């Protein structure tokens, strides 16, 4: 948040280094030590423990502190809009695009992906086990009026769920459809106890599977499931021209780091119980230019 202090520190350190004073350089770092990056993000990246892993590496390299606020995609972007965070890491492309179009975010990058899975009880009352089409599975759940627990919290997962209902042409309502208004872990627990179906990100399911009786009924694209269940994460810096208090330099350092080969390797190497949770997507010899602009954006719009 203290952009000027950061610049001063960098300038001080550089000048001292140019003057050949080794002590000065340490002094510069000591000033940067006070710098704090505020990251608002979704619960899935935080609760799986991935961000701690990334942040330790980033903090070590830059000598700064990262304050991670795990809020869910909707709230995380809202905090960014208010200028209360420096960088936002979320997973709902349509909401990210609105954030960019409204001018609050700049320099969006694809970061990584995993996928969503439909989990449900062993008895499988809707008979969706092994289905290869998520919309058909949702239609079956609605037709049999099997209990479905929805996040109901405007998170990335909730947005994906609504998208699938929309594609399935079903307006979910009735006793069987329950909006929990809570995080992924709580919803998995509710679905487990009811028991019922829910849409969940693979990472959270893996990390909680040992406590759950419900399990994956419909796989996502990582296990050859439908592309509709893809779950891409993006990272966006808050626009310093809109909120001049944000620590833009540090935000870009952070984005640079976690989309670097080192950062991407940390993501690829992160496993829980031997399973990889997230798949890096930032680097490619054939870059996807759509990652920088809202989907469907053309220069004519400007």
């Amino acid at each position, binding site marked *: 948040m203290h952009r000027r202090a950061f610049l001063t520190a960098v300038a001080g350190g550089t000048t001292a280094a140019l003057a050949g004073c080794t002590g000065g350089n340490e002094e510069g770092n000591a000033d940067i030590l006070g710098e704090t990056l505020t990251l608002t993000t979704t619960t899935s990246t935080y609760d799986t423990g991935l961000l701690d892993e990334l942040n330790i590496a980033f903090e070590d390299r830059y000598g700064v502190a990262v304050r991670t606020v795990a809020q869910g995609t909707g709230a995380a972007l809202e905090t960014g809009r208010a200028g209360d965070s420096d960088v936002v890491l979320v997973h709902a492309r349509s909401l990210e695009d609105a954030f960019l179009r409204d001018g609050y975010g700049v320099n969006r990058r694809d970061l990584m992906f995993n996928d969503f899975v439909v989990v449900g009880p062993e008895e499988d009352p809707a008979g969706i086990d092994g289905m290869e089409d998520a919309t058909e599975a949702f239609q079956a759940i609605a037709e049999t009026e099997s209990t479905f627990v929805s996040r109901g919290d405007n998170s990335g997962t909730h947005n994906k769920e609504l998208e699938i209902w929309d594609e399935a042409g079903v307006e979910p309502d009735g006793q069987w459809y329950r909006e929990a208004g*809570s995080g992924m872990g709580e919803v998995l627990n509710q679905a487990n106890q009811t028991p019922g179906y829910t849409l969940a990100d693979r990472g959270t399911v893996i990390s909680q599977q040992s406590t759950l009786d419900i399990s994956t009924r419909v796989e996502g694209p990582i296990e050859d499931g439908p592309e509709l269940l893809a779950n891409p994460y993006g990272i966006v810096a808050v626009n310093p021209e809109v909120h001049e208090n944000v620590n833009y330099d540090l935000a870009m350092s952070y984005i640079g780091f976690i989309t670097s080969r080192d950062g991407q390797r940390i993501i690829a190497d992160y496993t829980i119980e031997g399973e990889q949770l997230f798949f890096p997507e930032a680097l490619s010899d054939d870059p996807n230019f759509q990652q920088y602009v809202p989907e469907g954006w053309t220069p004519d719009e400007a």
Partner: protein
Amino acid sequence: MIDLVSSVVPIVDGITPLIIDFPVERTYLESIIYVSLYVSLIAIVLSTLVSLPTAMLIGFSEFPGKGFVVALINTGMGFPSVVVGLVVLFAVSNQGPLGTFDLMFTKEAMIMSQFVLATPVITGVSLAAVSSIEDGVRDAAYAMGGTRLDVALVTIKEARYGIMTAVLAGLGRAISEVGSVLIVGGNIAGADGSSVTRTLTTAIQLEARQGRFELAMLLGVILLTLVLLINAVVLRLGGGRI
């Protein structure tokens, strides 16, 4: 107390394997206990400094609309903490009136919200305690040539148990509250596992969110023990019989 917890944690590990990756270490526990106490105790001290004089002022004076003011204070005791959190959020947010102070997601913002939550409780209960002191006591103090301050001190002395209860009730409200500190504090812990704005209550909320109910319960027991200890100390200092 913390030693006890460390020895229990491996059992919990066996039930919920995620905890292996989660730093439930002494430093982590100590830091969230520290943040809980730091935020709540400062909020309560500030709150008491405002509440006591207010309660005395209202208790000692008669004015039209006094009943309404008392009703307002009593209503304040029931403020939903999430609403208080939102109000403080708007105040300290970059867009809010206090935006320039960079208070978003800090302990200071949490102190502000707990102050708002605890003040009506301490004022209301103190007011009841002060009002219940018989007029005779105050009259006697005046009759013996006491100044307004003397009379106030006598009243506080007479009403001390009630006032202690007020402060403890305020502390209970502050330290056990999760809605507002979650919103304005952000439940932040560093990657190294030390709390920045994570309190016992927000840590409980975090564990419950992830289905680690055993650890959540454990933290709840720590919180209760802590409040019990504080109550014991305060009552003992106040000369109570426990």
